[in-house]
């Protein structure tokens, strides 16, 4: 496939719209989970001391506001509103940008509590700021159809923003597997021995698998290979769906055994966007069908 076809050949938008709904729901849950500890994480009497940045280097609303709890509450409030607005597809791209700017500000106030899932969500909001994800499954579309300015069936659009997300996801998997190749525990097949012995990460018990060296090696090497494949082999069409299913199984397995709150669900939603736009369309239509039946 040429790069022109890859970026610009018009494709259905239902897949990226479905991705928008899932990601914004996760952004919303992530934000609401912060609420009980908002003052601890984002106030002058909390766990970090923060002064307003003197130089405007990054997107950060604290440059314009005092770094006090009230500012954090306002930023958090706008973030939640933007996430809801993105979820329902109301001023979709503007909402994505507002959600991105607000969450970037909060991340810069307190980077000590961030995990990779936070970074992934922030990046996805950046990409959704460019994507035509509000052209389906959205209030924006409902309004345009009612006003007679939008077509009854969503128009095909250039998928370049979705392609950027796909490239980012593949890069993420490839670089994490590349990093791991540098580690002895991964090379010797012992990595999951260590991760399964971390007291703070324990979740549900996994009998047998982490009690025997051969299964520990199998899980270590297979997850390393799968991450590498999700960053490289996923571009070969016949392998794409099997790899996506294998990736979902990997992330569900980690989510079952380890306490890493939303990260695995975020990664599963990223795998969904790795589908070709036409495959995404089929998936979105199937989900639509389920809703209609309900």
């Amino acid at each position, binding site marked *: 496939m040429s790069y022109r076809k890859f970026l*610009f050949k018009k494709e259905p938008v239902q897949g990226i719209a479905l991705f928008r709904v899932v990601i914004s729901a996760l952004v919303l849950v992530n934000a609401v989970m912060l609420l009980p500890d908002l003052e601890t994480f984002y106030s002058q009497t909390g*766990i970090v001391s923060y002064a307003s940045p003197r130089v405007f280097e990054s997107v950060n609303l604290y440059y314009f506001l005092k770094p006090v709890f009230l500012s954090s509450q306002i930023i958090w409030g706008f973030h939640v509103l933007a996430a809801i607005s993105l979820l329902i597809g109301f001023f979709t791209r503007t909402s994505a940008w507002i959600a991105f700017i607000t969450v970037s500000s909060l991340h810069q106030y307190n980077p*000590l*509590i961030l*995990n990779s899932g936070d970074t992934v969500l922030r*990046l996805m909001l950046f990409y959704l700021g460019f994507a035509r994800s509000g052209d389906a499954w959205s209030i924006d579309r409902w309004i345009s159809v009612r006003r007679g300015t939008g077509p009854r069936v969503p128009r095909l659009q250039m998928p370049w923003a979705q392609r950027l997300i796909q490239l980012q996801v593949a890069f993420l998997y490839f670089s994490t597997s590349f990093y791991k190749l*540098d580690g002895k525990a991964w090379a010797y097949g*012992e990595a999951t*021995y260590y991760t399964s012995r971390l007291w703070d990460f324990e979740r549900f*018990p996994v009998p047998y698998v982490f009690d025997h060296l051969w299964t520990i090696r199998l899980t270590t090497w297979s997850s390393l290979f799968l991450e590498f494949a999700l960053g490289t082999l996923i571009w070969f069409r016949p392998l794409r769906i099997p790899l996506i299913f294998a990736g979902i199984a990997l992330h569900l397995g980690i989510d079952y055994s380890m306490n890493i709150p939303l990260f695995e669900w975020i990664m599963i939603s990223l795998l969904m966007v790795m589908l070709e736009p036409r495959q995404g369309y089929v998936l979105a239509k199937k989900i639509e069908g389920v809703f209609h039946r309900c």
Partner: protein
Amino acid sequence: MNSWHTGTWGRRIRDPRAWILGFVGFHIAAIFLCDFPGSSPVRRVLSEPFRPYVTFFDLGQNWSMFAPEPSSLNGFLRGEVKYQDGSTGFYEFPRMCKLGLMDRFFKERYRKWAIDNVRADSHRADWPATARYVARQANRNPAVPPVEVSLWRHWVMVKDPMVEFVPVGYRVPDEKLETFRFHVEKITPADLQIGESR
């Protein structure tokens, strides 16, 4: 063939796809050069022009989850609080392994803060704020305020399975963990003020 294939440069520049292609190329180069693992002098030089863009949109991330080595450290932090009357008390940072399933899910960020960040020597700059936070948490009686907070690390490393293969769920009792006091902070009355007036 469409205008993309046959157009002159002038026409191509007016085509939005040319701008999109430029942005996509620039963005991919920025992400690859700034975020790919490892560093070489050539890549450092090549990535320099892209740094302001990556910094401005906060796009940098090294994707090093459990890499290159997974963590092998079990441990926790504790604050020792000395009060004005000479008595002492302890503040224990939230420990995931002592919480129920739901609390563990919601409080995971405390582990990230304490164990992955504050505990490390590279986060020395965050120790005073952490100690002041501990002091405020421990300031239960205004007549006897905290005057000093010490931060302690307690830890044990998971040994190589070829040396010692321990079963899943095996715990080393707290009193057998390695211990080290890594920071002492004098607390002033201003440090204890709650609210935005500080």
